[in-house]
């Protein structure tokens, strides 16, 4: 299978990235102590710091990166557009609106309902983009992006409105700010377990849907003649992307460009077959965000940057490059 060696390498790289991720944190620890905490020979507070604080955070970063990269793969396949990802299509913004809305309702509810609300928000905006983008019968790069901009602006306006209207949000401003700037935050290990479950389902769904998305590459009519129901497949793909985006936003807020860059960079290496691309994207996206989070924590230590700043700084120029290339191709 084309891409199998690449997937093996990426899968092997993930534990290495995670190992690097847990070496650095607010409390300086020698690598020997970090290892000791993992095998249970370190002192109690070091063990708590590594096992209950640092490792869950790094695993959360891996899940977020993997989820966004797979969601990006799905959306790029669906829109037959290499410029699509949860961030630029407004799917993330919809998820953030859902999460902020739940926080506005009450902190007691928030912990359990945030992933659900984020999923609902992501689903609504992904469906919205899809409807907007196919107005006039055909989806172009530009209509997808414009629809994404519209939805992102709308969701942002609603979030700001909520901020002004809700006294509770005024007091929980930092929680909202964390969602909008993107930063991996873990309050309880159960959050990571729940996200792992959701992301696992989303990735599984992406792999199952891979063949049908491949058929989409030739257009919906061709797909139909290949025995793929375009309507149902589209809904399933959007559902899976929303599931993955919702889980990612619930854990880390708005983290841009991972979903865009990772599948795009991998396509020349593992090919455009969505089954392999999704799997490779998961491992590569997971490593990428673990390393970006490591950078966010170390670049200006002891201050921590939001990880969204790091991915934005790296991803935005890459996105521009793609946009310029896509325009040239359209004009050529």
């Amino acid at each position, binding site marked *: 299978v084309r891409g199998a060696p690449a997937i093996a390498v990426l899968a092997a790289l993930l534990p290495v990235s995670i190992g690097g991720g847990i070496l650095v944190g*607010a409390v300086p620890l020698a690598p020997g102590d970090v290892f000791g905490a993992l095998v249970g020979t370190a002192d109690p*507070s070091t063990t708590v*710091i590594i096992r209950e604080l640092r490792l869950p955070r790094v695993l959360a970063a891996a899940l977020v990166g993997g989820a966004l990269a797979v969601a990006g793969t799905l959306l790029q396949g669906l829109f037959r557009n290499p410029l699509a990802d949860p961030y630029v299509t407004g799917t993330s913004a919809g998820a953030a609106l859902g999460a902020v809305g739940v926080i506005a309702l009450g902190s007691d509810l928030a912990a359990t309902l945030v992933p659900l609300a984020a999923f609902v928000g992501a689903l609504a905006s992904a469906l919205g983009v899809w409807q907007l983008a196919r107005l006039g019968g055909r989806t172009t790069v530009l209509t997808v992006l414009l629809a994404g901009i519209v939805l992102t602006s709308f969701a*942002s306006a609603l979030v700001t409105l909520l901020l002004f209207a809700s006294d509770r949000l005024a*007091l*929980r401003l*930092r929680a*909202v700010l*964390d969602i909008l700037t993107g930063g991996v935050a873990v309050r309880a290990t159960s959050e990571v377990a729940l996200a792992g479950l959701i992301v696992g389902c989303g990735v599984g769904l992406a792999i199952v849907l891979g063949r049908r998305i491949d058929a989409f590459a030739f257009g919906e009519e061709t797909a139909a003649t290949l025995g793929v129901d375009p309507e149902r497949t589209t809904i399933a793909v959007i559902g899976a992307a929303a599931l993955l985006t919702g889980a990612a936003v619930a854990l880390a807020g708005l983290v841009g460009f991972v979903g865009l860059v990772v599948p795009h960079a991998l396509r020349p290496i593992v090919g455009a077959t969505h089954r392999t691309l999704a799997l490779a994207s998961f491992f590569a996206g997971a490593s990428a965000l673990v390393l970006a989070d490591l950078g966010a924590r170390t670049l200006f230590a002891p201050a921590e940057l939001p990880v969204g700043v790091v991915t934005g700084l790296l991803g935005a120029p890459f996105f521009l490059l793609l946009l310029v290339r896509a325009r040239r191709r359209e004009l050529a």
Partner: protein
Amino acid sequence: MTRRIVLLLAPLLFLLSCVPSASPAPPSAAPAAAASAAAFPASVTDFQGRSVAISKRPERIVSIGPSNTEFLFTLGAGDRVVGDDDFSDEPPAAKTKPHVGGVKVNLEKVVSLKPDLIVTVKFSDGTIEALSQSTAAVLVVDPQNAADVARTASLLGKAVGADGDKLAAEIQARLDAVKAKTANATKPKVFHEIDASDLTKMYTVGPGSFIDDLIKLAGGTNIAAAAKSQYPTISAEEVVRADPDIVVLADSAYGTTAEAVAARAGWSALSAVKNKRVYPVDGNLFSRPGPRLGAAAEAYAKLVHPELFK
């Protein structure tokens, strides 16, 4: 939009002061001795080192900053306060005065109240300069620590024609009494939590803040005593490493409870959690360096050393 939110975030600590109080009103400090007209004209030096001339007894005072409002009422000048800020809520009468804004001061509203004295906390957005354009005397009074509180009492007393030195001495006596009681006690480690929305960047108190002073007076050791700012951030990793004996939740108004703290990943290992010494506190009493600082020190000491304050 992010910019707006950053702007909103800046006064977060200020917002803490608008948390409704569950405690009864403080015992009404006897209005200081009635001012004699002979006290004016007076000249006072404010917190920005400016020498301000006050020609006659101020009759229309605008107070900006909850601690300033509380001081003015305690000094017996409450009936001369014609306006205060949105967050001034102590004593309850402060809430019924016309408000001139909070995070952002409404200059037109201030002028319309025709003040002859404006007492305000520090602003860096040009508010002070704009207020100084009016005919009123403008005093910048911005207490940050325990020493500032005595200074504020004396300064405002002189400005409004009341016995501020007496109030300063009363507050100082209560602080000294608490200090004397805890002087030889053990010094348990205290983590004072202001905001824990993000457990990697929680807000706490550092040197130079009045709460750091309260922890010391109460006979505790602030785990962030070595921080570089008054309101530094701290990571859960550092809290676990420091292993506080006591956790004080000044963010209880956000819904943070002892149970929620125990449920945080890794926190069940803390001595404070194991020994059930996680205390939600009335944010109002501990949110401002005002005339109730003596009462705040006593309340804090009761948390840290319950055996000494029965």
